[in-house]
């Protein structure tokens, strides 16, 4: 009787241990498969994702814009993307464009700090963090520059492409008037993906 009981409890203990090991294994497996929740993973928040998507857009836009020939000094001059007030976006851009070219041109990313002058750039992204500065740059904005912003109403102030968040996604709106004013031609494929287009193509 006594031995039987010991046998039962040992069996229970063994199966419990096995079960625990099973749970542990499953957990490790699950964490491996689904992404380990460490501090770095936490930093990968939505905001970072939003910035990454915007960075990817800035790079992709280059394929759908025709700059006047005068915008490039030589056939192999780099395509310059300047980023004002969004170091995160600049960092992502640098990572995702490394080793890539656009139409045979290398890509150069320029990070523009709060007090830095705005360099000549083919694509100029002005973040929404400092709206006064954004307005200033838009007013004096360089010609031949695809100016991209992320503030409601920025198209009215001279921006060519403005990011908006719609249905939890990064979308963009286009002002053809501003594009024309800056001497740029935008491909109809770009217009087709835009959430809205202002002006007549």
């Amino acid at each position, binding site marked *: 009787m006594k031995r039987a009981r010991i046998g039962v409890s040992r069996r*229970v203990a063994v*199966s*419990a241990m*096995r*079960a*625990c090991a*099973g*749970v542990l*294994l*499953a*957990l490790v*497996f*699950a964490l491996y*498969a*689904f*992404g*380990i*929740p460490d501090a770095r*993973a*936490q*930093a*990968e*928040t*939505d*905001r*970072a*994702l*939003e910035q*990454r*998507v915007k*960075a*990817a*857009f800035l*790079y*992709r836009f280059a394929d*759908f814009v025709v700059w006047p020939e005068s915008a490039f000094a030589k056939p192999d001059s780099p395509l310059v993307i300047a980023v004002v007030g969004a170091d995160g976006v600049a960092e*992502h851009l640098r*990572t*995702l*464009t*490394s080793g*890539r070219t656009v139409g045979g041109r290398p890509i150069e990313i320029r990070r523009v700090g709060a007090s830095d002058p705005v360099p000549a750039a083919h694509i100029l992204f002005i973040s929404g963090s400092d709206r006064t500065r954004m307005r200033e740059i838009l007013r004096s904005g360089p010609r031949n520059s695809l100016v991209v912003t992320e503030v*409601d*109403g920025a*198209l*009215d102030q001279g921006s060519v492409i403005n990011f908006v*968040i*719609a*249905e*939890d*996604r*990064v*979308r963009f709106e286009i002002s053809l008037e501003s594009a024309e004013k800056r001497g740029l031609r935008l491909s109809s*494929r*770009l217009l087709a*993906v835009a*959430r*809205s287009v*202002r002006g007549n193509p």
Partner: protein
Amino acid sequence: MSRYTRAFRPCLGQRVVHVALALCSAFVAAPLDAASDLAELSLEQLSNIVVTSVSRREEPLGAAAASIYVITGEDIRRSGATTLPEALRLAPNLQVARADADQYAISARGFNNTIANRLLVLIDGRIVYSPLFSGVFWEVQDVVLEDVLRIEVISGPGGTLWGANAVSGVINVITRPAADTQGLLVAAGAGNRQRGATTRYGGTFGADGHYRVYGKHFDLDNTRRADGVPTVDGGSRGQAGFRADWGTARRGYTVQGDAYRTDIAQPVGGSRNLGGANLLARWSESREDGSSVQAQAYYDRVERDQPGAIREELDILNAEFQHGFDAAKSNRVLWGAGYRYARDSIENLSPGLAFIPGSRNLSWYNVFAQDEWRLRENLALTLGAKVEHNDYSGYEWLPNARLAWRLTPERLLWSAVSRVARAPSRIDRELFVPARPPFALAGGPDFKSEVSNVLEIGYRAQETHALSYSVTAFRHQHQRLRSIELRPGGSVLENRMEGSTTGVEAWGTYRVTARWRLDAGWVELRQSLRPTPDSTSTATAAGLGNDPNRWITLRSAFDVTPRHEIDVLARYVSELPNPQVPAYTAVDARFGWNVSKELQLSLLLQNLFDRSHPEWGPVANRAEFGRGVFLKVLWRP
């Protein structure tokens, strides 16, 4: 006890292993991880990445010195909610109790009732309460949930901006602009308790105009009592509507409208036929100097044919205007005015009760102003007041003062003191039981506004990218609450109750990983109500509301892969005292499968571990809610 634990462990272990294995083998998909992956995506693919942002989520809350919770469209989608009241369960600061298949008792900070009268509800700026009792008939309030941008839920007084009736909370349902709902959407779902289908189409017009049109139909089955007998409350609703937006970001115009028809079964006398239609126009403009102007007007018609009770036709006209501008470098002024007119025509069908007079024309008008004064870079004082006039009690004075102190960019400490009034409604003055004299109960000819003075202190923080939370403590001091007084010839409604409501509401969000989010909410509520010394009332506070002391919600949203979602929503509600409703815990789970960009499938399981539970009402004939299954298909080509 320990034997059970031991015996249980192996099963649990095996189950976890099985589930884990099943998940791993079923969903092998490459997640969007390395930054370089994004460079390979087309413009269309980039446009389709969901980037719901924590920071943006906080934005509408910003420096708001109020207890405000925002339910996003994404939250609603992931909850699997099929009706507006079910979606409101996502707000931790709301108490939502389902009374039967169609009716709900919803309130913030106590006084919950199916005829709760202290919560102001707006759908796209249109006030949806009934002047019959200053509350909401939830069975006729519906929207296309897929088109909801967000629902702002403010607990606590909102009288200065929203007027009398925003006594203990405001629910603001905001749908997406038409530009955000372009193209076709078809959603259909069926389950063991409900079935429904929605179609919406959005297109463009003119140079800068967008529109959408929609139609939806929904059927709810009868619920059952604890003993299995059907309660005969099943319903069928149809609704159609449109919205058109045009103009620029600076100057925008909106016209929108809806029409609906709802039939709800009743045990005797035939079904309740409810219907209505509304049409709203809005103009808003923001100028270079930072000022903004908005004006809107709407017409709302409501028809209620409730055999054995009343037949009502109600027409409402509402117009309002507001203007915001920077008065000096550190002052932001917002002021406005509003007018509301209601023609309520009631045919009394029951010998048991009557509204006398049957027809009534009512009007309300108001002026308000508030100044947000930036005392220092991180300290803002908002002073505001509204004066509102109603036909019953005359002028009501609704002032408040709010202080917001931004300790760091991520931490806000705020406090507010407010005075709010719940203006009399038809039920307080003009309800008679029975329909002919002698009356056992009569509306009070001298019934005045119920008044509350409210103190709130709150703290809101975004501690890290992953963790944010909000805690609010509040005390509402009530005067002149509705009481039933014994008078010669019968009882009369008067204002001889008083007391207080004290509590704490807290909620938070923790992003465990980029794919796993946890939300939790906790509310503690204590109410102390008593008749004033000169009252003859023997009744307790039961007529005013029936509230739990505590309710807790827990929500987990997990992306197993970018295409597969598992959501769990658990809620605990403590016992309701009078009539007694036992405490309950309900767990819902949802499995979502985004088959492609165009097609989403989801399976919703409700009340997983619960044979059935009641949420509201006296034991004799109350509905219980059992397990529910709902399969939904959403197609957006």
